[in-house]
């Protein structure tokens, strides 16, 4: 389990396209990418939740919770990105576009890319999908139900995943079928 500043650093590095992290680049990336703003608000909410078990943080916790709720509401109304705290999103996540993203009740591994219109897990169903590391998820994908997706898998655009996806597979279609059993998605992942 990484400390939260390492997680946020990995998120920033994902958006910088291979450039070294500096304060100026971090500011411009945070202003430019709505997905990065949503991720930062999500990480702030994780910090607030962790502070529940540390009584010396309780005096500032109501203010922090208020800031978090306002930020979440503005991200949801402006961009349509909902990253709920019931989801566990690993370090180095990359959300490049915005609109209709909802991630709830699931586990997402490290260095995943999530495109617009993606729904992972359901807000009402507590058993959601488990997604491995380095998975590339295309636009308008729906991943619902207790499915597991292996490391390095590639989910094509518009696919509906209803059963497990093995490691490094490329799936496409509705319902999702395996098109290539061994597909290297390092070429389509954003650099960083």
């Amino acid at each position, binding site marked *: 389990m990484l400390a939260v500043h390492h997680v946020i650093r990995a998120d920033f590095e994902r958006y910088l396209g291979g450039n070294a992290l500096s304060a100026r680049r971090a500011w411009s990336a945070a202003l430019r990418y709505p997905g990065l703003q949503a991720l930062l608000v999500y990480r702030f909410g994780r910090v607030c939740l962790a502070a529940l078990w540390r009584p010396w943080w309780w005096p500032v916790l109501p203010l922090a919770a208020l800031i978090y709720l306002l930020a979440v509401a503005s991200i949801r109304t402006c961009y349509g990105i909902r990253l709920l705290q019931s989801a566990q999103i690993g370090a180095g996540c990359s959300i490049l*576009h915005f*609109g209709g993203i909802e991630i709830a009740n699931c586990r997402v591994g490290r260095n995943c890319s999530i495109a617009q*219109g993606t729904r992972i897990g359901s807000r009402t169903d507590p058993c959601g999908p488990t997604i491995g590391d380095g998975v590339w998820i*295309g636009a*308008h994908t729906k991943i619902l139900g207790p499915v597991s997706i292996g490391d390095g898998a590639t989910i094509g655009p*518009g696919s509906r995943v209803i059963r497990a996806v093995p490691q490094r597979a490329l799936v*496409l279609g509705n319902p999702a079928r395996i098109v290539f059993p061994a597909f290297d998605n390092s070429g*389509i*992942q954003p650099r960083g």
Partner: protein
Amino acid sequence: MLLAAHRLSHYYYALLPPKRRAPGTIVLRLLIFVGRTLAVILAKSDIYHATMIDEGVHLSNDGRLTIGARRIGRGTIIHDRVTIGFKAGAGIDPPMPTVGENVWIGSDCVIYGDIEIGDGATILPETVLSMNVPARAVVGGNPARIIAREFDNAGLRLSLATVVAETEFVPSCSPSIT
């Protein structure tokens, strides 16, 4: 509203000199950013400022459009939650789709790759399209396939069209009055 925001960013993009990052262009690039931010606020949409959108195009005000196309022809109707863009991993300056005239694009479509959509084509809702579409064809499904050819979508576009179709629309089910 959404189209007006795009017109703003595209107008200032057209004023940019060929060397985009020249130091004097900071005001122009800021105005492009303002236009794109307006599209975000008004309709949760992201429209690439270099996209050429002709007159008479109807973009759904419901929004959530993510559009990066080379050109969108006149009389085209695009419904909400549509993604048009380049293929992932296509490199720097990737080829984008070209949408012809009088095309009807249903909601929830994903259109990507170096493709051309012919004039008068109909793309059904929830299509994932990555191949060329001939003129006046109907495509649908995921993955997409051609369902019908020589289909006249004037009736579909009638309620939203701002450009009058070349041929007058005659519903096929109407009784002929002679």
